[in-house]
Structures are given as structure tokens and as C-alpha cells.
């Protein structure tokens, strides 16, 4: 081919004859993997590079249009710039999942080249084209400010921070993954290139509900470079599912599709380009059927049944005391209906997996998920294999937020690799990801809450209806958490909650940061403000009067433990709330840490001393929240060793023991405690060896942590549902135009393990909560998603308010994991009701539907 398109990349001239997106040339031809493929639509900014001094998205520019240009990627930064960005982003906590980071670095670099002393608004403007879903942008902005200061010579790199000699619990820990993520050499599955690797992708249903009449792949198979086309017939057991196996791997001829994400057949080809062509050549005949669009349609008498057991996927009933009688005799009662939408996780890294035949009779899959053992379990069900024959290894995970708990591409890649006996990469396009993976459940709920003349809650009656879409995913536990947490972190004993999850032909709904609690606590907290009004006390006061305290009994009967600090979080935001009358809203929340409810929720860890290092083996996915660093801190705290002597060996089902799913805010507490236990044993051995780690060479220290809980509805006076609860109070403050000006987020997460990281977790959670409240939606037209990544309503850097992350640390802590309780989910729960409360305070209109209408953000 004539290499007619020439340009320089990082100072070296390159030529190509192919006219294609520059992103593809940089990644596929030059193997510059810092340039991330987050959407290939121009929306996300992960592929940002610098072209002739301007930050642009490389998926938009083409090789043809790049002729003569000078192109710079992270790989081409000077050593000084690299070190400045690495240090600044680590010191400020700018890096979480890391998938947006190289793009942020390049957007920042383009700005600093023009202006080495930018203002905060200038930085925000420069980052406007780059989405971050983890940090809430604040820490990235601070990272760029510090980079600028270093490059100006006004701040210095302190190498000892990254070296981490002092790395224990509570110290400012420089995350272990900062360098690889900032410089872009850390591997996500899409960065894997193997010799002889093929590519696989599914043809997905054209309609949400249609009978598949025929599949004709002959034209696709005739295309040179196409290796195979698989259908349902080629799947040993055509069902997967995280808990309920109701999810067809592919829809067989004669069967009916359940949503537009359903796979019809799997095409495997030599290259992604051939794959795209081949997919278009597959001819599928459908008989289109009327979809079931809503909970109402699904629950109507005579509704078409989408699954053999009918359309009611899950139900729960949570009862204590006598809610009816309590409400009847209450001085004040408020009953309201609330409606919340599906929400897309919008993690920056779309799903991708690479599978390959492994040994004689096994298969290995590299993935980006929230639990390698979960993935192994689902694949073993599909193949009918013993789980040990499937090896699952996590690469870096570019965000999850619950959306990577179900298998998406892993099982597909395994099928493909076994069929063609070669490594196969399967990744979802951004739109495929949006259409395919489970969302946050849409809810319609009615809450009736009563109180006495002093505002003390008396009882609650609650109906929660969830649209769980095409498949169950995690409907059961999510619905259960919505029910059990609909009561809030308060002291009252009469509760009756009914929850229902219905199948429809919408995309499935499953786990999403907050796990059902974002929905039900929005309803509850909004009702509380109305009760406060009737009693004649402030929204702050009514919460404080009812707030749970150590030793008091939660509505589920659990006695609040010594670490409970909800009142402290209320006190921490009191002044901010009260000094903004008519402009401020407040809400509290609680969230379990650990799966609880009687399930065998175990943390497991093995520490091995090898080559003078302590190696941590514990399969607990770090999806960006930073648990891989937290575990090293736990070992450092127990042993006194520095970061340089401790290695986290990651998540591989062949090497590391199962430490459960990254879900339920559990890793810091549950896995953290297992690691602490093992580390304490190691420390004892180390002391016995006179402090000489070399003497322990080859020794292993294993620990399993399990703190039993009681199952839901256990007939006990005070059942213990969860190992721990985190508590929080958020205050949202509006300006006179109705824009969110400030958010105060006070959290009780027990002992803070890493003060840099927790702030970023809180800020990111708050921004996600604000998006839920104000801008994010997931419109469906007859069950077909209408949103693209760029129109989901994700907040950009220019939209953020000033977020104040506050953590209250008590002296009394739980005896696990040095007292840490986990922050993952709760940071995103109270924000939406607090925002609702702020608008209610401003104009007296009760907005019962999210995203809220008639605000500065949405008319």
C-alpha cells in the first residue's frame, strides 16, 4: 500500500496508506496504549492527544487529515513532564480507575503549554471534553494545578511520598497504580495483544422482543478472514446469570428475544475490520412482537410472560412491629409517590475480555470485572465444566460502579477461543455497552411515614416497584437492600415494606453503586422534609431527633454498634445548612458494608514471602476505588514494612483465594480484615525471626475472615443484618439562579485508611449523585435506549460545584480492619434527596421524579 499519509508522532515520522481514525492507527499500528478507546464517538475524551499544540480527540481525527501534523501522546512527554504529572496526580489523589487519566494529562499538558499558571476556571474549561466518572474532577484539577506549580519551579517532587516508607493505615498513601495509569502503560484488557489473536463480536437483536425465525450466516462465513459463526446451538448450556441463571447466552432460532442487547450469534474473525463487515452479512429473520414496556404492562393481567415463571422476578416483604397501627395513631402522616429512572454506569472503559485455550483442557480469560470468581462461576455453568478448568485474571478495571458484576464479554470470549482454538478478544462498542449491561433499577415507590407531635418517627409503610428489565441480574439482593434501607438511619420500630421487581423488555437492571438504596432513600428523605414542615421544625432538627446512636435499635432490629456516628455527620454540616436558609437541602443515609443477611460473606487472603517481598494474594477486584492500595496499607500497618516491600499480586482465580465480589462496600472491611489477620501472623513470625524478612522466605500466612450475620426476617429480638453500616449526611446549597453552588458531604466510614483516596471517593460519589438528581437520564422508546454516551447527561468539569468532603472519625471503632467501614456506595446516596430538599426550600415545589425537572439544569 502506498504510504501517502505522513505525520510525526512523538517526534518520529510515520506513514500509512490507510485512511482511518487516528486512534486506531496510534493503538493498533504504533501500539501507543496510553491512547484509550472509551467511545470512538468523540464524547468521552479518553483518546485525547495533542496535535500541533491543541488537545483533540484522536478518534475524531483521521490519518488522512493528520498529514503533516505533529502529534504528541503521553509516551512522548519529556521525562520532567512525566515525573511532574505522576507525582502531582498521585499526591493529589487524581487517579482512581485511571482510564480517563492519560486523556486528562494531555488536555492538561495542552493547557499548560499555553499558560503555565492557569486559573481553576481555565483548567475546568480545558477539561470540558474529558469525562471522569470516578473523581468528580476536583482531584484532577488539583493534580493539574500541582503539575503546573512543579513545572514553574514553585513546588517540588517529593520522591519519598511515592516510595511509601510510611504507608500504614491513615497515612497519605500514594496509590500503587498511579504511575502505570498516568503514563498509560498499565494494561486494561483492550491493551492486550497476543500473537495469533482473533476478534469476536455478537450480532445483537434488532428488536427488544421478537421471535428469531432464522439465522443465515453463509455470506459472513464466505468472507475471507471470518473464522467461525456460533449460535445458541454451539453453547453447552445456554444460560448464565450472576444469581439466577435466566440469561440466554444467545437467542436460539425459535426463541424470543428479551431486549435489544440480546446476542443472536457470535462472529469470530481475523481482524476488527473484517468482523464489522461480517456482522453486517449475517441475515436474521425476525417476527417482531409487542414489547412489555413498563412495570404496569408487565404486571397487568394477561400480560405476555417474558420468562417461564412469569413477569414477577423477585419480591420481598420486610416487616417489624405494627406499621398500620402506628401510622393510624400518628399525629402527622405523609404519603407520597416517587419515580426514579434507569441510570447508566457510564464507566469510562467499555467491557473487554481476552480468552485463550489454557493447557490441555482449560481456558483462561483476562477480564475487567468486579469478581474473578463470579466470572469463573458463570462461565463454568455455561460450559458445564468444573470451575478449576477456567482461569480468570483481572487486568486493570476502568470503572465498574456495579455494572461489571455480571458477565458481559468474558463468556463470549471463552466460547470464541474454544471454538477457534486461538486467543480471541471481545469488546463492546460504547453503544453496545450502553444497550447491553444492567442499569440502576428504575423505581416507582410510595412511602408513607408518620411521626408524633415532636417529630419522632412512629412507623413506615412502603411499596417499591422495580423495573428489572429483561433479566434478573442482581434484582433480588438489590431489591432487598432497597427495602431494608428504605427506613433510613433512624430509631423507630414499626415498618412494613413490600418490594417487587418486574421483568420487562427494557435493558436489564442490576447492581449500581448504592444498590437500590439511592432509590428508596430518595423517597424516604423527601418525605421527612414534609413531616418536618408539619411539625414546625427544621429538616436538620427532625433528622437529629431521630438519628441512630450507638446502642439504639435500627428499624430492622439491629443494635447500632459503637462506631455509629450519624449524629456527628449531622453536626459537621449543621452550620453550612443553617447559614443558607431557603437555599439548602439536607439528607442522611446509611449503607451496609458487607453482604450480610446470613450469607457466607468471607474475606480471604494469603501472604507469601518471596524474594524478600511480602506478596498479597487475595482475589478482590480493585475497580478504581483503590482497595489494592488499601490492602498494602493494612499489611504495612500490621508489620511496619514499607510499600517497597509489599506487593499486591492482583486477582487471578488460579493464584489468589476468593475474597468475594467488589460489591456492598465490602472490600476494605471484609477483605481488609482477612489481610490484617494474615499480616498479624506474619508480624509475629517476623518478630520471632528478629525482624529479618529473609528468614521467612517461602512462608505463607493464610487468613479467612467471616463475621456471621442473621438472615432477613430472622426471628430474633435484635437480628444482626450486616457486619457494619456507614452513615452520612449531605447538604446541597444552591445559588440564586438555582445552580448547585456547594455540597457538604460528611461521612462516617469508620477509620479512614487513606485520606487522599477517601476524599476522591466522596467527591466522585457526590457528583454521581448530583447527576442522578439533576442531569442524567436514560430515555427509552419502546424499550430501545435512546441515549448515546455524550447525551446521558454526565456532568463535565465545568459543571461541578464546590464539594467539601468531610469525614468524622470516632475513637470507638469496630474491631475489624483497623476500624475501616468502607465508603464506596454511600457517597452517592444522600446527594439526590439533599438536592431535592434544596429546591423545595427555594421554591416550595416537591419534585418527586428524578432527574428533577424545572431546575437550572432541566426545564
Amino acid at each position, binding site marked *: 500500500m502506498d504510504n501517502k499519509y505522513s505525520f510525526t508522532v512523538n517526534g518520529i515520522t510515520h506513514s500509512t496508506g490507510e485512511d482511518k481514525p487516528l486512534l486506531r492507527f496510534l493503538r493498533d499500528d504504533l501500539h501507543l496504549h496510553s491512547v484509550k478507546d472509551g467511545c470512538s464517538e468523540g464524547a468521552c475524551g479518553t483518546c485525547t492527544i495533542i496535535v500541533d499544540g491543541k488537545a483533540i480527540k484522536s478518534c*475524531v481525527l483521521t490519518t488522512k487529515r493528520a498529514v503533516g501534523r505533529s502529534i504528541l501522546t503521553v509516551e512522548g512527554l519529556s521525562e520532567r513532564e512525566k515525573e511532574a504529572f505522576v507525582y502531582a496526580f498521585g499526591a493529589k489523589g487524581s487517579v482512581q480507575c485511571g482510564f480517563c487519566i492519560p486523556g486528562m494529562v494531555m488536555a492538561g499538558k495542552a493547557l499548560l503549554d499555553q499558560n503555565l499558571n492557569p486559573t481553576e476556571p481555565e483548567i475546568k474549561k480545558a477539561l470540558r471534553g474529558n469525562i471522569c466518572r470516578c473523581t468528580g474532577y476536583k482531584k484532577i484539577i488539583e493534580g493539574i494545578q500541582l503539575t503546573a506549580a512543579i513545572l514553574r519551579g514553585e513546588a517540588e517532587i517529593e520522591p519519598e511520598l511515592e516510595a511509601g516508607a510510611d504507608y500504614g493505615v491513615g497515612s497519605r498513601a500514594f496509590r500503587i497504580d498511579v504511575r502505570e495509569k498516568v503514563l498509560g502503560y498499565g494494561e486494561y484488557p483492550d491493551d492486550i495483544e497476543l500473537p495469533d489473536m482473533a476478534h469476536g463480536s455478537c450480532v445483537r437483536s434488532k428488536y427488544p422482543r421478537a421471535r428469531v425465525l432464522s439465522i443465515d450466516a453463509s455470506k459472513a462465513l464466505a468472507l475471507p478472514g471470518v473464522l467461525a459463526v456460533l449460535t445458541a446451538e454451539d453453547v453447552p448450556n445456554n444460560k448464565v446469570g450472576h444469581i439466577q441463571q435466566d440469561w440466554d447466552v444467545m437467542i436460539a432460532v425459535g426463541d424470543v428475544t428479551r431486549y435489544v442487547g440480546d446476542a443472536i450469534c457470535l462472529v469470530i474473525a481475523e481482524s476488527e475490520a473484517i468482523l464489522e463487515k461480517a456482522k453486517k452479512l449475517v441475515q436474521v429473520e425476525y417476527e417482531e412482537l409487542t414489547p412489555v414496556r413498563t412495570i404496569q404492562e408487565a404486571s397487568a393481567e394477561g400480560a405476555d410472560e417474558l420468562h417461564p415463571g412469569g413477569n414477577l422476578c423477585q419480591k420481598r416483604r420486610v416487616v417489624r412491629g405494627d406499621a398500620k397501627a402506628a401510622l393510624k395513631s400518628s399525629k402527622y402522616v405523609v404519603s407520597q409517590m416517587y419515580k426514579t429512572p434507569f441510570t447508566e454506569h457510564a464507566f469510562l472503559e467499555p467491557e473487554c475480555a481476552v480468552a485463550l485455550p489454557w493447557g490441555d483442557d482449560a481456558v483462561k480469560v483476562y477480564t475487567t470485572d468486579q469478581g474473578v470468581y463470579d466470572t469463573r462461576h458463570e462461565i463454568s455453568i455455561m460450559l458445564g465444566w468444573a470451575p478449576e478448568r477456567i482461569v480468570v485474571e483481572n487486568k486493570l478495571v476502568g470503572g465498574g460502579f456495579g455494572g461489571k458484576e455480571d458477565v458481559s464479554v468474558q463468556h463470549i470470549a471463552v466460547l470464541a477461543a474454544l471454538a477457534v482454538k486461538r486467543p480471541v478478544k471481545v469488546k463492546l462498542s460504547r453503544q453496545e455497552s450502553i444497550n447491553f449491561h444492567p442499569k440502576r433499577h428504575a423505581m416507582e415507590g410510595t412511602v408513607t411515614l408518620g411521626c408524633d407531635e415532636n417529630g419522632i418517627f412512629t412507623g413506615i409503610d412502603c411499596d417499591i416497584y422495580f423495573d428489572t428489565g429483561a433479566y434478573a441480574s442482581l434484582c433480588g439482593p438489590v431489591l432487598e437492600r432497597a427495602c431494608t434501607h428504605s427506613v433510613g438511619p433512624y430509631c423507630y420500630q414499626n415498618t412494613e415494606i413490600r418490594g417487587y421487581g418486574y421483568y420487562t423488555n427494557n435493558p436489564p437492571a442490576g447492581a449500581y453503586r448504592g444498590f437500590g438504596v439511592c432509590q428508596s432513600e430518595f423517597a424516604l428523605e423527601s418525605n421527612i422534609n414534609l413531616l418536618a414542615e408539619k411539625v414546625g421544625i427544621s429538616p436538620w432538627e427532625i433528622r437529629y431527633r431521630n438519628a441512630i446512636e450507638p446502642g439504639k435499635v435500627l428499624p430492622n432490629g439491629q443494635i447500632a454498634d459503637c462506631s455509629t456516628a450519624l449524629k456527628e455527620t449531622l453536626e459537621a454540616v449543621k452550620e453550612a445548612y443553617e447559614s443558607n436558609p431557603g437555599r439548602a437541602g439536607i439528607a442522611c443515609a446509611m449503607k451496609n458494608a458487607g453482604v450480610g443477611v446470613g450469607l457466607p460473606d468471607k474475606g480471604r487472603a494469603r501472604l507469601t514471602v518471596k524474594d524478600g517481598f511480602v506478596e498479597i494474594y487475595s482475589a478482590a477486584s480493585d475497580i478504581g476505588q483503590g482497595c489494592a492500595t488499601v490492602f498494602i496499607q493494612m499489611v504495612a500497618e500490621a508489620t511496619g514494612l514499607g510499600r517497597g516491600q509489599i506487593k499486591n499480586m492482583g486477582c487471578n482465580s488460579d493464584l489468589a483465594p476468593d475474597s468475594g465480589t467488589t460489591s456492598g462496600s465490602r472490600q476494605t472491611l471484609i477483605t481488609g480484615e482477612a489481610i490484617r489477620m494474615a499480616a498479624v501472623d506474619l508480624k509475629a513470625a517476623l518478630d520471632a525471626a528478629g525482624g529479618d524478612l529473609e528468614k521467612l522466605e517461602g512462608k505463607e500466612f493464610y487468613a479467612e475472615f467471616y463475621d456471621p450475620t442473621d438472615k432477613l426476617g430472622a426471628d430474633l429480638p435484635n437480628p444482626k443484618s450486616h457486619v457494619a453500616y456507614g452513615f452520612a449526611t449531605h447538604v446541597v446549597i444552591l445559588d440564586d439562579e438555582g445552580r448547585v453552588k456547594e455540597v457538604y458531604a460528611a461521612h462516617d466510614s469508620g477509620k479512614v485508611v487513606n485520606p487522599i483516596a477517601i476524599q476522591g471517593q466522596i467527591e466522585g460519589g457526590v457528583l454521581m449523585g448530583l447527576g442522578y438528581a439533576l442531569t442524567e437520564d436514560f430515555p427509552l422508546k419502546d424499550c430501545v435506549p435512546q441515549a*448515546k454516551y455524550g*447525551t446521558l447527561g454526565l456532568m463535565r468539569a*465545568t*459543571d461541578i460545584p464546590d464539594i467539601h468532603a468531610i469525614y468524622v472519625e470516632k475513637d470507638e471503632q469496630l474491631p475489624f480492619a483497623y476500624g475501616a467501614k468502607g465508603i464506596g456506595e454511600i457517597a452517592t446516596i444522600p446527594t439526590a434527596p439533599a438536592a431535592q430538599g434544596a429546591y423545595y426550600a427555594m421554591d416550595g415545589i416537591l419534585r418527586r421524579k428524578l432527574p428533577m425537572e424545572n431546575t*437550572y439544569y432541566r426545564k
Partner: protein
Amino acid sequence: MAQKRTKRMAVVNCAGGSTRAENPGAGSPQNGCRGALEAGEKIIECGYGCLGLGDCVAACKLGAITVGPTGAAVVDREKCVGCGLCVGVCPRGLIRLSEPEFNIFTRCQSAADGPTTRKVCATGCIACGICEKNCPAGAITVTGNRAVIDEAKCIACGMCAVKCPRGTIGDDWKIFTIDRA
């Protein structure tokens, strides 16, 4: 979500691709654009585009506007301070103020239908909708036979400029588009 910003910059909503009218003698620089229009002189075939007779050039105190090789006014981004004098004098209302860091523009405001525009202009918007379809942010709509960008939604990614088959949508950084101007 619009941000309040103070700095502005002039943008010309015409790329100047129209066929010149066969009308010898019409369009004297003394009469300028407004004069030519008032005299009923036909300068270009397009009924909406830039006449290129320089009313804006004359109005600009900083020498930031010239009439470019395609016959339409071109703003020098280095010199423009966003005073807005040119905006008021353009008889066809083709100039408006935008943000200086904003680089993507629809350079046509013809309300004529696609086939008509195609006949008279090499760069005019034919309302094909390719930009609307490819915009990741939902910021472009084709209304009144032309692409209109909602700058509050636009993230200036340049996708529309790359995909536009007519070169109507321009990139003032001249990275996504190779301009004739």
C-alpha cells in the same frame, strides 16, 4: 449548561463558496455590502452568504478582518478582541460573537433547500443531517435547512467538521478541516 464568560470573538457564518453572480460592474467597494444590497445589485448567487465587499473590514478598528480567497470575510483570531463592531454592520447578519476557545462553527446560514444551495454554492449546508447523526453530544440540529450548533451542549470534539461532506462546518484551529480559505 452555559457558562458566563467575558471574552468573545467574532465568527463569520459563511465559508464563501457561492458562485459569483454574472453582473459586471456591480459591487463597488465604495458602496460596500449594504450599498450593493440597497441598490438591488446581485453579487453572489446565494441569497444569504457573504458579499465580500468589506463593510466589516472597514468597521474593524484592529484590522482583524479581511476578505479571504473564497470571497468571504475571515477573522484573524489573534487580532480580534470581540468588540462586536463588525456584527452590527453586516447587512446579512452573518457575524456573531462566540467564545475564543470555541473552534467549531457552522459556516452557512442559508435557509434555501439542499438542492438549491448545492446548485449555487460549493460549501453551503445542504441539510443532509450527517452532522446531526454523528454528533456525540446531541448538540446539532438541522433547522431551517441548515445545521445549527447549540454551543451550550457542544464539546467541540470536531466530529461534525470531519464528517461534513461539504466543508460547511469549519474548525478554526484548522486541524480537523483543511480549509480553502
